[in-house]
């Protein structure tokens, strides 16, 4: 029971990261019906930019962890947000009416470029964050031997805050309403006086900015990363978005948590049920889960059945 609780908390933390990255996928898919393959690599760029800032500029400016991290978070979000808008402008907007195959190639190309630049910037090596960041946060003792590190609690809180904030933004504000309108129908939105291009740009700023923030957090949480982080993590986050029903913000959150928890659980309990090298198969879990869900519920857990437009 105690291991279970401990693993549940670990799974929730990872799931929170998946969920935040999945939000970016789901928003973009909502407005453009496009799998933004570059999103995972923008997330990795968040980790990379955060590492760059925390080890060079900000390390010299302040010795306060929290101040440095806050400054890094703001800068990383701005940087990745602009990156997302640029990619949309350069690689996706010219292809908006070009069928379904071309944007996929273009998105993959953008992802390759981001990954290649990151590879050369980081010299293709594992990079480590400054040690001891936020480590003095107090541990929370739940029961006798189950404890939650302060870092985990903080991460979880930040992730939940992002999700709630985004949900309220999309549901309650004028711009959020415009986003929902654009995701339903571009032309009708245009007739209603919505500047569709600007809304799409905004989506491509918010989604990657949040992804970049998640990248920074995961860098702090794990402590080390390399340039291949983005692809696998991004793919899994996308799967999380599909699990919950793509285009649906609560769905992305639900999918992220389900994926995070099932991964940690399989790795933890796999050896007990005869799967000796469960951790080697960890990455396959997401894919198996995806296929199972899609066979059972083709539109995801919270997705509504939408007739394909003819």
């Amino acid at each position, binding site marked *: 029971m105690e291991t279970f609780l401990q693993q549940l908390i670990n799974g929730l933390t990872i799931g929170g990261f998946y969920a935040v990255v999945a939000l970016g996928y789901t928003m973009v898919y909502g407005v453009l019906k496009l799998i933004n393959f570059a999103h995972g690599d923008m997330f990795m760029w968040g980790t990379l930019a955060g590492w760059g800032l925390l080890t060079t500029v900000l390390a010299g400016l302040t010795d306060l962890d929290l101040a440095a991290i806050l400054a890094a978070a703001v800068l990383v979000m701005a940087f990745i947000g602009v990156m997302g808008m640029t990619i949309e402008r350069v690689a996706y907007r010219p*292809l908006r009416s070009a069928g379904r195959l071309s944007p996929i190639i273009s998105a993959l190309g953008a992802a390759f*470029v981001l990954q290649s630049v990151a590879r050369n910037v980081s010299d293709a090596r594992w990079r480590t964050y400054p040690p001891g960041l936020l480590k003095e946060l107090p541990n929370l003792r739940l029961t006798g031997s189950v404890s939650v590190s302060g870092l985990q609690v903080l991460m979880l809180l930040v992730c939940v805050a992002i999700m709630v904030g985004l949900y309220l933004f999309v549901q309650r504000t004028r711009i959020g309403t415009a986003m929902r309108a654009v995701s339903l129908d571009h032309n009708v939105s245009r007739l209603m006086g919505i500047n569709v291009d600007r809304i799409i740009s905004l989506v491509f700023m918010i989604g990657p900015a949040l992804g970049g923030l998640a990248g920074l957090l995961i860098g702090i949480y794990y402590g080390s990363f390399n340039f291949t982080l983005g692809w696998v993590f991004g793919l899994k986050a996308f799967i999380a978005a599909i699990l919950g029903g793509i285009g649906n913000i609560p769905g992305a959150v639900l999918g992220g948590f389900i994926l995070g928890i099932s991964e940690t659980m399989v790795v933890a309990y796999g050896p007990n049920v005869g799967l000796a090298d469960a951790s080697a198969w960890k990455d396959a879990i*997401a894919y198996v889960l995806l296929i199972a869900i899609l066979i059972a519920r083709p539109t995801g857990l919270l997705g509504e059945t939408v007739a394909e437009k003819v």
Partner: protein
Amino acid sequence: MSQSLARISRPWMGSALVLALALVLPYLPFMDRSRTSLAVLAGIYVMLGLSLNLIVGYAGLFQLGHAAFFGLGAYTAAILSIEHNITILATIPIAALVAGGAAILISKPILHLRGDYLCIVTIAFGEIFRIGVTNNAFGITGGANGLFGAGRPEFPLPWVEPVPALVLALVLLLYVYLMRKSGPVVRWGGAGLIAASYYLLPLALDQKPLFLVSIVMAVVALVLVTALRDHHVSPRGQMIALVGVVALFGLIAAARSGPIVTAIEGSLDEYFNVGAPTTVLGVEVTPVAFRRDARPYYYLVLGFILITLVGMRRLQDSRLGRAWLYVREDQLAAEAMGIDTTQVKLAAFAIGSAVAGVAGVLYAGRFTVVAPESFNFLQSVIMFCIVVLGGSGSIPGILVGTLGMVVLPELLRDVGPNFLYQGLNPAVILALLLGLHLYSARGRLGGAALESGVIAAAFFVPPLVLGERVLYVPGLLMALAALTLLPIVRRRTGDVLLWVGSAAAVYAIVMLVAGKSLAPDLQRSVTAFRIMDWRDGLMGAAMVVMMVLRPAGMIPERRRGVMFSAVAETPAPAEIAVPQQATVGDAQ
């Protein structure tokens, strides 16, 4: 008659030219050992492109996990060859069955999914395959290192019975089947003519190796007659062509039998290992094995490509091929016409994957090492790009896509960092860039030419004045930036030339002033630049640029749907009322 000849002649010329080039390629002067090997790899990718084209181009389905089926074929061949000592060409049917069967099992439950979901599920299957073989699933895949020592392909010595008889039987069966709608003279008379001359050549001259000539003759006759039939040449024309082929081969063989036999036996010794005769299924055959030399293997792959191509063309024109077209263009309409869309899509997946499995066998036979990283997601993306960049559904597009995605990156490996400023290279690259600019500026050629002239001046003046060739490198960057920014500047201001001129002047002056002191540093960083580090990034940038410039691909397929709309645009007055015209063309 003359009109139909004109209609067929143009597409034929292109294909014939490419085929001729492909046939002589390994013996061209610039083909060294490694490039021939690269040609073999490119051939395997052409086959993969053809197979994926069936799924993506014809049937319009997403498949971003094609490498898994390629890998299934390769692993099947390697396992059967290593563990069970089966000669690798004999594993082709098994590998095709395994890959095609796996495709059916996997895609059956997911085919009803919408496009993007299908895309992500195929990625998922590809990743599961990779993770599976890396973790040594079932203990037979050799883990992360893969499998070593798959055998090189062997085939029976072609002029020892029963091989010639078997080949003849196969050719005749095909001939009689394909010509089943022709009259008895062409059908049975032609078959008899082929059979008679097939045995006449080697037996009359008493030279067994001449069976090889006979085999070539039979295949050429088969292909030629069926092609003429497909292009509506009269039966008499078909018979004349058949007699011509037979007579031509007979004359050549009779006149030069000695040199031909020496050549055949000589190249057998040079390129192949002749083994000791063994007994297979109660028949004695002499195995002949490929050696390391890539040239014979190239022709093997080429043969498989040609067979695949012919199969694809015939499929495309079949009932199933038309069904794919309808499903791609409008699934609902296809369903309404009574097409079982699930079965049709399943067929595309199964056939495409089976061909990929065959390509996997060829891969295993050539490289003898089968390892997980050859079948990862990047490979799937490369295959997908081969199909889409060239133009989805278009066969010439696959050739172009393979050149761009497989051959070019490998050739770049040999390119040193100073390639950019050696000899005439900078001038050639600049000419290409400016040519592209002029091409896209049709209509205001004068202005574009002036802009190009200014850029060229700023490009050439600093290196030539200072005598530092390395200054061409920033010059190229300047030209690229100028050509990218030009359209944006033009949208903002009317006076483009002034802007371009002043920017180029500033660049040239800065370079003239600082160039001398900059050059050594520049030289050092250019020399330190390793293109392999940036290969993926360059490939990605090329993918984005290509798609933005030509969303339909380099050589888009001539859409057959367009024929309908072409009819609908200029209809005869009486035909306007015919309701059937609202078909595929309108639905687009």
